[in-house]
């Protein structure tokens, strides 16, 4: 709002209030013979109190001041900030949304609150120009606009949410760019950017790492690696509490020397809740966000596998020695397509030389399903009951790169006969030299399948060294899928290092739910689904009949160390004064208006004091 508009609004509001006061709703008129006696009564009464003599003036003043206060609340005046420019053009203010911005300062406000106050001042002092607000986490979140109220609303709504160091919002035609940051994350900046530093060193203790790694001890589901850093200038006693689900498994007080990193390895036994939560508490602790970390112990409970087939002894031998799998063996006649309860639903179903009439709802591994299985064939083949061609003595010569066949040595495997299936959803991940598929995978929003096109009768599968690798890969891929868009070699690493922010998931992912079962909105771009994981916690992605649970943590020594800042490469650096934050001015004006309205009401009530 331009200055003349603001002044016009103020003057108009004051005049309107005074006018309305003078013509305010009148009580009913009553004609009386003479007002002589009333005048005497009221004069007698009012001559006794000073208040009654000044009441009307006070009431009028209060009304005008209320109107002015409300008008000021609309105009939202503010002081001109350091480094601000009133020049015409577009103003872009970028807030650093790193988690370190949530650190509390000595005055009790957070760096983020100080940054928001500084941004507010920048916008207020540039009223009239086009303005835009951006954060390093969300990019451009408001503008360009000349409406200060929109910017104000966006400022109130925004909050720290991480953000990549390389992410930098752009605004076409921006003539002034201000970046308000604490410098915790180093960023390459254009020299024209004016940096406003809200940095103030603060002591902190934070969890810098929490990972669950595979354990070498057979009875354990994994080893939790915990790293706690003391970034305070003095030694601190750090209370560490570790929970599995709601049960506390450890509560210990540790002594942490200045700048010391405490490292703990905690064996996680099998059984129990797979959700692991670590909380720390220390006297000098400016940042709360890094005091909590989460981990998901994927192998806390064994996988439930149902094997369906007439002769499945060979699989029984394979699973008997695996403590990570609890296998159940049923005949095809005893197979129930839909279990009675959800808890009875297996993680993986293995079909040996048999296939149900319809695709199973659970992730499934097939060994040589019958060639005429209709849902494994293309529609034309199924309609004509035509079998797809087999290949005798196929040669698997090229190792596959898909997680299912990763590490399987094809040269030790001898196959006498391999079938092929023509369903379009099946994607071959291992083929013979003549192109006959040996292993298919199918990944769709409804199903997740692995199809091995040869049986043990037609191969040396059970004797081949690649068999346990193939079986383990397939069960892992089916039951513990990595649903992120990138398919790294080590899925555990992906799970361990997931941080808040924009995350890309595979296209088959249909839902992502966060802490307290809150659903995270998904945005699809091509074959990738994007979700913004805003807060640390345990998340679950679902799709293709499988679910993947993973933990999201901040866990970054750079963020937890609140005593360091990155020198800005920019030409202009403005230090934001302490105590700059607080409620915006208009809030005080609104409160003043409310108080004055109450005072006016009170004076109105007291206009007769007899």
């Amino acid at each position, binding site marked *: 709002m331009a200055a003349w508009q603001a002044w016009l609004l103020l003057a108009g509001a004051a005049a309107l209030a005074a006018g309305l006061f003078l013509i305010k709703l*009148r*009580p*009913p*008129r*009553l*004609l*009386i*013979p*003479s*007002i*002589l*006696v*009333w*005048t*005497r*009564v*009221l004069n*007698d*009464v009012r001559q006794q109190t000073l208040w009654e003599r000044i009441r009307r003036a006070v009431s009028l003043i209060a009304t005008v001041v209320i109107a002015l206060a409300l008008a000021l609340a609309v105009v939202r005046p503010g002081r001109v900030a350091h480094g601000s420019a009133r020049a015409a053009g577009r103003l872009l203010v970028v807030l650093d949304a790193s988690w370190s911005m949530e650190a509390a300062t000595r005055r009790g406000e957070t760096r983020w609150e100080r940054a928001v106050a500084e941004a507010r001042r920048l916008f207020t002092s540039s009223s009239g120009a086009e303005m835009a607000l951006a954060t390093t986490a969300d990019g451009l979140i408001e503008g360009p606009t000349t409406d200060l109220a929109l910017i104000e609303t966006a400022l109130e709504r925004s909050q720290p949410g991480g953000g990549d160091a390389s992410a930098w919002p752009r605004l076409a035609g921006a003539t002034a760019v201000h970046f308000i940051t604490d410098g915790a994350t180093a960023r390459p900046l254009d020299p024209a950017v004016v940096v406003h530093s809200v940095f103030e060193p603060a002591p902190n203790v934070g969890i810098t790492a929490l990972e669950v790694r595979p354990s070498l001890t057979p009875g354990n589901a994994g080893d939790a690696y915990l790293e706690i850093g003391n970034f305070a200038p003095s030694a601190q006693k750090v209370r560490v509490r570790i929970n599995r689900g709601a049960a506390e498994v450890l509560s210990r007080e540790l002594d942490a020397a200045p700048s010391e990193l405490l490292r703990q390895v905690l064996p996680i036994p099998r059984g129990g809740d797979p959700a692991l939560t670590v909380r720390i508490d220390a006297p000098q602790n400016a940042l709360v966000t890094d005091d909590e970390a989460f981990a998901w112990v994927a192998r806390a409970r064994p996988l439930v596998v149902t094997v369906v087939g007439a002769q499945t002894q060979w699989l029984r031998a394979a699973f008997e020695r695996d403590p990570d799998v609890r296998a159940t063996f049923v005949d095809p006649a005893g197979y129930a397509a839909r279990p009675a309860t959800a808890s009875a639903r297996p993680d993986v179903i293995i079909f040996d030389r048999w296939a149900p009439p319809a695709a199973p709802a659970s992730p499934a591994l097939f060994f040589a399903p019958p060639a005429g299985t209709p849902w494994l064939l293309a529609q034309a083949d199924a309609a004509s009951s035509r079998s797809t061609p087999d290949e005798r003595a196929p040669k698997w010569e090229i190792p596959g790169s898909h997680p299912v066949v990763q590490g399987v040595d094809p040269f030790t495997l001898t196959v006498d006969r391999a079938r092929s299936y023509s369903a379009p959803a099946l994607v071959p991940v291992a083929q013979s030299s003549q192109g006959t598929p040996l292993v298919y995978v199918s990944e769709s929003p409804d199903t997740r399948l692995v199809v091995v096109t040869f049986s043990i009768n037609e191969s040396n599968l059970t004797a081949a060294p690649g068999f346990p690798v193939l079986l383990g890969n397939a069960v892992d891929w089916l039951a513990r899928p990595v649903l992120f868009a990138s398919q790294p070699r080590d899925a555990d690493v992906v799970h361990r290092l997931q941080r808040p922010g924009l995350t890309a998931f595979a296209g088959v992912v249909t839902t992502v739910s966060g802490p307290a079962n809150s659903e995270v909105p998904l945005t699809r771009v091509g074959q990738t689904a994007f979700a913004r994981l805003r807060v640390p916690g345990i998340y679950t992605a679902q799709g293709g009949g499988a679910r993947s649970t993973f933990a999201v943590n901040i866990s970054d020594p750079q963020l937890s160390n609140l005593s360091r800042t990155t020198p800005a490469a920019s030409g202009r650096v403005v230090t934001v004064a302490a105590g700059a934050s607080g409620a915006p001015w208009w809030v005080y004006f609104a409160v003043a208006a409310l108080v004055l309205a109450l005072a006016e009401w009170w004076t109105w009530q007291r*206009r*007769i004091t*007899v």
Partner: protein
Amino acid sequence: MALRFDDQFLKKLEYLHVVSKRAFAGHNRADRLTAHRGRGLEFADHRPYTAGDDFRHIDWKAYKRLGRLLLRLFDEERDLPIYLMLDVSRSMAEPAKFDMARRIAAALCYIGLVHLDKLTILPFGRGLGQESAPGRGKGRIFRVFEYLERLEAAGPTDLRGSFKEFAARPRQLGLTVIISDFLDPGGFEAGIKILRTLGHDVFVVHITSEQDRSPGAFGEVRFVDAETGELREVEVTPRLASAYTKAWQGHAAELENFCGRYDVGYVRADAEQPFEDIVLKAFRQGRFVA
């Protein structure tokens, strides 16, 4: 409202006569004794005969006894000038009040007419209105009724201005009856004092009504003065209503005390009271009529 009295009430009025504390002599013969010696019926005294005296008044019996010519003297009987000053300001516009005032005026007129007094009706508000002198004899009462019925209450009250105007014209001294609610922002004292200073025998009939005596409403009210149009925004609380009632009683008591101090007759006539009670009882108790 038609100002008519029934025959029975008129008969009752005929037995009354207006009492004046002082003896005023009018110009016409009537049945009120005056201080003058003249041709009345009541023997007063003798005096020696002088040339030019009327032979008919020589007391021949005294001449036979005393051998001197003595003239018999009689008390003169004249009429009483009565000025009925009727308030016709807007504050009297309340029908009950105005009717009561006009009825009282009419009743006093009838009593005066019966006793051949010289009546003058003077309506007043901001100043004196068109006065009326109905003449002598009770048959003129209908002209009085017609005149009073034509009167309308309008304009503000100015007792002092009106009575100054009354005093500005030479008039016979007599009995002046003021029929008013005495709600004059300028006060009633100055006006009444003017009449007293002139030498009139003044009598006050204070007309009141329930609307005058009570605050009239509770809660937030904008009172509008019927005469001046002045507004007063008041929230009438029970406490304030009580203060108003006290203030009005103080106003009435002030008028009554003033009248007592200046030897002015005072009678209060509440508009809600029966009219006959006021004339036949209150006026008698106030020694205004006998």
